[in-house]
């Protein structure tokens, strides 16, 4: 190959990379090809944490993401809710990112309807209160100090699902869905101070940050990214969006690896030619 070719490769316009990537992700989506999914231990542990709950136990679900992370977190949120409602676990939803709570609410209503659950009796959406650190610390004393009403203004006292639920002591598991630093605050405040049992679904980016918590047993399980969602879907036996996106992932990964290799070959060829 000529030296000119590699010079072009080395200074490739990034818009060409963009275009090829776009094609590489779109095609498998349109063709809908499948593949095998093997659950990894962190996802198994998260699944086991929910599986350890019994009917009537309380699971707190925290929506700490917004639309930006919905593609990764919504599939796993649905799976976790399905698993919980299947076991007749009481679900209390709240969130520290108000802008994302409606997404959580949509998933909650959707899955609750699948299992014929009743609002206020089997599940509740407490909504959002500002100042997540204050809320997290305050919930160790009394949830009603911050959430005296639910997202639509119904008094919490009138909702049977909240009977006997006052603080972390009454919450059997916290399952947070995280796309940012809120997970650190959950661990720092609810776990470190009140020893709350917790598991998390995070974006793939946040997952490495949460690994230390998993390793130090501060959290019980971790579902990371669309891949984790696909694994969770496999564990509960309900394939969804997570499973469907995996082939496109695979193509895109191979493409990026290919580009890295190409870039390095170009780098070495031109360096050798220059002597």
């Amino acid at each position, binding site marked *: 190959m000529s030296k000119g070719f590699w010079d072009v490769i080395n200074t490739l316009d990034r818009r060409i990379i*963009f275009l090829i990537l776009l094609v590489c992700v779109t095609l498998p989506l349109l063709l809908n090809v499948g593949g095998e999914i093997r659950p990894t231990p962190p996802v198994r542990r998260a699944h086991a944490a929910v599986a350890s709950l019994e009917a009537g136990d309380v699971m707190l679900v925290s929506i700490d993401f917004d*639309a930006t992370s919905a593609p990764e977190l919504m599939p796993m949120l649905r799976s976790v809710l399905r698993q919980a409602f299947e076991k007749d676990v009481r679900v209390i939803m709240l969130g520290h990112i108000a802008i994302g709570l*409606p997404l959580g609410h949509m998933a909650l209503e959707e899955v609750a309807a699948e299992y014929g659950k009743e609002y206020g009796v089997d599940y509740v959406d407490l909504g959002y209160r500002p100042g997540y650190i204050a809320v997290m*610390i305050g919930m160790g004393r009394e949830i009603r100090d911050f959430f005296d009403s639910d997202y639509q203004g119904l008094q919490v006292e009138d909702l049977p699902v909240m009977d006997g639920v006052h603080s972390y002591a009454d919450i059997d598991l916290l399952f947070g869905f995280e796309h940012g630093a809120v997970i650190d605050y959950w661990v720092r405040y609810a776990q470190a101070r009140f020893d709350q049992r917790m598991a998390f679904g995070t974006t793939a980016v946040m997952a490495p940050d949460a690994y*230390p918590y998993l390793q130090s047993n501060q959290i019980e399980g971790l579902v990371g990214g669309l891949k984790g969602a696909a694994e969770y879907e496999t564990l509960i036996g309900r394939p969804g969006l997570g499973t469907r996106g995996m082939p496109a992932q695979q193509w895109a990964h191979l493409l990026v690896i290919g580009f890295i290799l190409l870039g*390095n070959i170009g780098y070495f060829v031109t360096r050798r030619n220059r002597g």
Partner: protein
Amino acid sequence: MKRSIPLAITFLTGVFLVISFFVPHEPLGALEQRLLIWFSIVSGFTMLLGVDNLLRTHIRKIGRRNSGWWHSGFLLLGFAATVVLGVLGRIHHGSPFHMQSPFMFVYTYSIVPLQGTMFALLAFFIASASYRAFRARNTVATLLLVSAVIVMLGRIPIGAAISEFFPAAQEWIMDVPQLAAKRGIQIGAALGAVSMSLRIILGIERSYLS
């Protein structure tokens, strides 16, 4: 006066927050929570200053007929429509975020796609950045490159199909060296943060009101 009062406020706020952390006895125990609520309220008022600044900037652009000034017009329009719909949602449905509130139209059909798409730009940028940055220029750069490629391969099924090495190596790298460096960085950064916080509380670091 103009300097010592703010320094004293910072000092007292910081010191009481720390004391409140260790002393559960009232009135100190609940102080942390109280101060954080206060912080939220002060932030709320300050939001008015921010919005005022934004609106002024764009009204000025329109007034001066800067190039593309009409974009600023759309900005003001979007702002006004959102605020009006939010207030309507609060009045008619109790909350702007109620599922029936007109505010949710703005949320569902502009905030969600705009957020999601801005974020999705990252798919492209991560490809271009890795193409450009991951060149084996020296030992250190090579390490970066090799660990990135192993993890990328280990994350997808075809990596496992090529060799069981890739998923296993991916797990190991994430669990051991990745975790170790992250931990080292975090402990160091935490010490730095404590030290800086202390300098601020003691008034040594005071560029914010010098």
